[in-house]
């Protein structure tokens, strides 16, 4: 196919991502489970790439989890999001970057709703003004944090200290990329590559030396399901979804799983532990499980950040086997030390996952 025709064909799968001056909103899930990931993102953006990323102390949850668990009405969620827009406007920014995929989906849903139903936007403006006296401008650009890292993936590659390559064999690492459902399933044209060909994580993996695995359940949900995980009686749904994915990817022998959603890495990490405990079945080589990373953690590893500063010790599935493959040096003795080398004790070792060689 002619290059020109090819570009035209794939045009609708492209996405405009602002170049600088981002208003960053945090994720309730990511900051609770993978706090080092958000810090790594800010460090990469500010210190490596020299970008202006602003965070307002007064921003709150977008209510996305409660909205999708149906305890918060759409009007409430839209007005809370309008308040975030107001904080962005008063700070002099126009490019909104959420850390959370659920938030990204919520923001996208709201902006699309307002486009089709201007009277709803007018109603929300009234709600916000009545409740807070605030006004706002709509963001000029909305991109998920993974979109932004994707945009600068080659700059990151040029600064990389390590590659997604097995240092012993010289072969690319085999990577499962898992895209959060609310990234592009609802509004395909808002994600790089759409819902069918999401390229946001593939671009990073390939730029940093890895090889992406295609497997049958590649696009299946991790199993959060909002109320399906939040309520104890429903959690079988959640683990069943993850198990379906693990069984589908297992024959392809992945070296790691990378995700762009905050919840997915937690589920894909923890459910491996649960399945090991329940069924004495572990995925990955040597019964060690398959390490699960956020995209920020993967970028930070490539850039050579201290693994314990970016929080790799809060994963249940150990990341050490992956660091060994990549040739990343690490000090196991520092894994559970706090600031100023404070001893924080040690977690218990799970019964069935193989932690030998981890020096815990």
């Amino acid at each position, binding site marked *: 196919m002619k290059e020109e025709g090819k570009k035209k064909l794939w045009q609708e799968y492209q996405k405009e991502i602002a170049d600088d001056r981002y208003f960053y909103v945090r994720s309730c899930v990511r900051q609770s489970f993978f706090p080092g990931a958000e810090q790594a993102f800010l460090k990469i953006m500010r210190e490596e790439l020299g970008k202006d990323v602003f965070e307002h102390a007064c921003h709150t949850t977008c209510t996305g989890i409660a909205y999708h668990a149906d*305890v918060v009405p759409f009007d409430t969620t839209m007005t809370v999001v309008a308040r975030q827009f107001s904080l962005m406007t008063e700070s002099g920014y126009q490019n909104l970057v959420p850390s959370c995929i659920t938030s990204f989906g919520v923001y996208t849903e709201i902006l699309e709703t307002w486009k089709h139903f201007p009277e709803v936007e007018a109603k929300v403006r009234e709600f916000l003004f009545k*409740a807070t006296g605030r006004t706002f401008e709509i963001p000029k650009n909305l991109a998920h944090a993974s979109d932004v890292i994707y945009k600068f993936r080659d700059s990151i590659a040029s600064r990389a200290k390590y590659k997604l390559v097995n240092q012993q064999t010289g072969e690319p690492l085999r990577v499962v990329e898992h895209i959060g459902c609310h990234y592009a399933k*609802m509004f395909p044209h808002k994600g790089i590559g759409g819902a069918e060909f999401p390229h946001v994580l593939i671009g990073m993996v390939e730029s940093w030396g890895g090889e992406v695995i295609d497997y049958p359940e590649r696009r299946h949900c991790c199993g959060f*399901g909002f109320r399906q995980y939040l309520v104890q009686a429903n959690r079988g*749904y959640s683990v069943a979804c993850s198990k379906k994915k693990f069984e589908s990817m297992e024959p392809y022998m992945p070296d790691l799983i990378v995700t762009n959603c905050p919840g997915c890495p937690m589920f894909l990490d923890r459910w491996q532990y649960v399945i090991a405990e329940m069924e004495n079945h572990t995925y990955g080589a040597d019964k060690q499980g398959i390490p699960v990373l956020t995209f920020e953690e993967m970028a930070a590893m490539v850039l050579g950040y201290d693994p314990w500063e970016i929080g790799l010790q809060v994963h249940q599935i150990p990341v050490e086997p992956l660091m060994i493959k990549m040739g990343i040096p690490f000090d196991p003795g520092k894994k559970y030390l706090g600031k100023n080398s404070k001893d924080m004790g040690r977690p218990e070792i799970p019964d069935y996952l193989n932690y030998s060689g981890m020096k815990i």
Partner: protein
Amino acid sequence: MKGLFDRLSADIRVQEGLKACINCGTCTAICPAAGFYNYDPRILTDMVQKRDDNVIEELLKGEFIWYCGECMSCKSRCPRGNVPGLLITALRALSQELGFFTMSEKGRQQLAVKRTVGEWIIKHGYCLYLEGAGTEVHPEQGPIWDWVQGNWRDVFDKMEANYQGSGPGILRKIPEESMEELRRIFDVTGGTARFEQIEKCSEEKAAEMGMEYSKDSDCEYLRHVCLANEKDHNRH
């Protein structure tokens, strides 16, 4: 009950999510909930497009609408632009508005979600606030979570968080004036009314079921809705 379809279709998510279902079943093939629960988004969409108030009432009072995980995978593949997941959000909203949600085992669980995620938002400004939420309630979080819980502040300090601090950062204390704005938004937009409706209907249901209920703390009814699976919900 008359007028239920009209009330449902007043929700813009129904206007956006219901076109003309051709019953092809593509949504069901891709649906994670359909693989686990006795659930089928094709049947759901077909039931809604019948525009029959009796059928809508059956949905609002039953288990069926509570099985979806709102992953919205159905949206990505429907050849006619239907979104069963959006219909679910509208049905669940109406079920709670009319107080029908306590008539199903899965619907009654809304109290558990309101008491956790809902109240974390109002108290802390976050959807999750997990200090103290340990493995007794979340055993799947494993020994690493016990370790994090046991060293909460030190772990977050290590990651350069701003736990309970002022200014920006991870798990910062959201300023009281911002919390006030958030609460007023809930008051003005129906968020507070939804919470009160969940509590009121749950209290009535607890009395009907002969269970102890407390608005402010743990109680027999809350524990029951968190754990009960007395019906067979699963696909076999």
